């Protein structure tokens, strides 16, 4: 954890909703190219952390710095979500948020197109640049659907996809924005064991083949332990443990947070 190439630096972030403290002095370092997992019981503040990292919530205290490359540093706090996404942070949602009335292909295409410059005039007149960009986004969307193995669903409407496919589609859409880091919020929720395996493989491929750092919230411990290089445990808005999967599995504080206080821990 002592490295000088972090992609996300979260320092002393505190987020409150009225009197409720959702995040309390959270500090996290996410290294470039790493699969980092955030776990914790329900209400621990995991999704709040994600929302802070993507600009949806603005924390009252602390700083969040995003390094799209080694030399660049971008302050996330106070940046609107779409500009955070432009900087290279992509995310998926806890409850999948598809554009339901659009096809799988269109969903991914919107992700790809969000980076393009075509304006309304170009779109109306079909200017050369628009055609060029349209061609590129078509091609890129097909590539991405192939990458997540959804080619057979290209023209299916998003709301008629099975659950596992929705998760993949959401990931493909996020990848369309060409991110540096991908934030996955419980991607395995509601999927069956074989889908989970495929998902783990996909996440690994995103990490290795596309060279994208991954921040993962997940409740499925098997998946987390097999994927994550490092794990951070949140409870009641604070970091209670950090380390490799082995260290976390044996950490008494974590066991207490998940299972309640045991007699040994009390002594």
């Amino acid at each position, binding site marked *: 954890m002592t490295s000088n190439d972090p992609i996300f630096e979260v320092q002393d972030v505190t987020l409150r*909703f009225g009197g409720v403290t*959702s995040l309390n002095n959270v500090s996290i370092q996410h290294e470039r190219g790493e699969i980092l997992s955030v776990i914790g019981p*329900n*209400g621990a503040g*995991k*999704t*709040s952390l994600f*929302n802070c990292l*993507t600009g*949806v*919530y603005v924390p009252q205290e602390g700083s969040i710095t995003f390094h799209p490359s080694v030399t660049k540093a971008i302050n996330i706090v106070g940046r*609107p*979500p*779409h*500009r955070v*996404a*432009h900087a290279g942070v*992509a*995310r998926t*949602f*806890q*409850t999948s*948020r*598809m*554009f*339901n*009335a*659009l096809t799988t292909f*269109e969903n991914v*295409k*919107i*992700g790809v*197109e*969000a*980076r*393009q410059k*075509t*304006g*309304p005039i170009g*779109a*109306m*007149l*079909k200017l050369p640049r*628009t055609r060029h*960009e*349209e061609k590129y*986004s078509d091609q890129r969307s097909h590539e991405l659907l192939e990458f997540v193995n959804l080619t057979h669903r290209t023209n299916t*409407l998003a*709301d008629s996809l099975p659950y596992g496919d929705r998760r993949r589609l959401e990931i493909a*859409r*996020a990848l*369309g*924005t060409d991110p540096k880091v991908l934030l996955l919020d419980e991607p395995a929720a509601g999927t069956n064991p074989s889908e989970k395996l495929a998902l783990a493989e996909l996440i690994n491929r995103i990490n290795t083949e596309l060279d994208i750092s991954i921040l993962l919230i997940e409740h499925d411990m098997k998946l987390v332990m097999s994927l994550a290089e490092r794990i951070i445990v949140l409870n009641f808005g604070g970091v209670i443990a950090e380390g490799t999967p082995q260290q976390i599995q044996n950490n008494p504080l974590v066991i207490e947070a998940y299972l309640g206080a045991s007699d040994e821990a009390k002594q």
Partner: protein
Amino acid sequence: MSVEASAPQKRNRSLNSDDVRRMCTAIAGGLVLAIMTGPDGAISDPTYGVKTSLLSGHVVGYLIFGVIIGCLLTYRAKVKDGTWRGDRTTPRRTSMERAMSLSSVSRYASLTVTAFAVAIITLIFADFSGPVLRNKMSMHAIAHQFLYTRTYGYLILAFALWFTVVNQAMRLTTFRLRSIPRPLFVLGAIITILLFSLTSDPFLPARFSWRALNPGVANSLFHHWTTYLWLTFGLAVSLSWMFKRDSARGTRPLRRSHALVVTPSMRFLTYVAAGFVVFEAPKFMSTYWQISLFQQIGVFCLLAIGLNIVVGFAGLLDLGYVAFYALGAYVTAYFSGALPLQPPFHLNPFLIIPFAIIIAMLSGVLLGLPTLRLRGDYLAIVTLGFGEIVYVLANDWTQVTAGSAGTGAITNFSIHFLGINYAWNPVNYLSYYYLLLGVLIPAIFLFDFLNHSKVGRTWAAIREDEVAAQSLGINALKYKVMAFAMGASTAGVAGVFTAVKVGVLFPNTFVLQLSISILVLVIFGGMGSIVGVLFGAIVLQWLPSYLNFHSYLGFEETNLYLYIGALLIVMMIFRPQGLVPSRRRRREILDSQEGLGSADALGAITYEQPS
């Protein structure tokens, strides 16, 4: 329903009660139409109109229409449910096929009979679209129709359409006309279209005189441009047929699908037919309809497709849309020097259009930037307020807008350019209509391109899930403001047209009710679908004019909103997506009824709760 071998042959040929019902409905429909479009009744005796409609020869035409439509419906239904289906491997022929294929003699006989039927219908159509006369259907009147070149144009077009329809019908069954050799076909098409373009020109005699080229004769050149238009269409059709790939041979599946196959040439023919109706039909209308075609229908089509961008594409409820319309109109008045506040320079209305666009757009952006952060109901209330502000300003700021006394006279459209001098004549109503078409048709195509581009998809994304859209890097506010500005500028252009045509502006034209009427056009036709919205605008704007025209129906203009309200309630219950909805919008509304997705009919967005 399976049609393979097992179904008894006898049952297939007989007509059942469903077919009888269909037939009766169609004929009754024809009769109702006859009553509705018949001669005027007197106010003292409104039934007079009904009586004469039913007793005059007029009714024959509608009865024929009814029978034909009934036959068509029956035929379609039979083909659709598989009762009448051809199958190459096991030919089970229907009575129609049998009649047509017994021998070449009977085939040609039936073709001739059908051709005569088509000719009669066409003649009736030509008659109806001709000068308004009582008892139009007398034999004498029909014979008289042959004196008009127009009739031949209709005939040729009808035959062209008829052949396409027959070919399509044949595709559905096993029976096919022997294919016509291609060069002959192309030649025929060229000649057809050429003849049609010539004969459909009501100014045919003048066309062939040198007078047409004489600059001293006012308006002469402008009378012939439709001829050139049809020539272009004809050439395009012929060329597209000539260069069409021959995909038929060898690749044709043995069994035809039940659905109507829409080929590119059919689509093109549809465009041509629509173009014909839009360009040619108004020439044969009475003055009353020529006026309302521009003022009641055309301008509102433009307004409706503009509002469709805001409500249909971007999913924002705008209740103050008429404000931008008013702005366009008052900008025109300002630059015409018709307001108490004098402009620095006077402009021709054509040059005012860009100003109106820019000013309406700017005001859209200014209103949008602070308010589009609101959503759903709040936005509706703010826009409602904006509409009222503009109305009150127009009404009360008398130093600038002249208030309820009305503005002065507004300059008319005219062209003075490169030696062309043409001024629009307020009495020549169609000249305004064609000018409006010059704006409306490009707008329809441009907005359609827009909807199917990145921008349209982005709007769909924002409509459905703003949070997810933002997480992809979409600046939702920017796109909403964009939609607002484009809708506003369209209304601005509509404002210029209205102002110039009407000549004098009164603030009470731009009341809240008008905003709501335009919104109703959009909702009724089908949000998000340009065709639907145009359809809604044409139907809903035509109907009051029609009811007013036939005074014996007892329609009172003041009750209009009563009917519109009732119509909306019925629509919302039975068809909330509108008459001709867009595919995306229909899905969204179905989804939200099932509790899926976050977009309701007007794009109110629910937010994720922090967990």
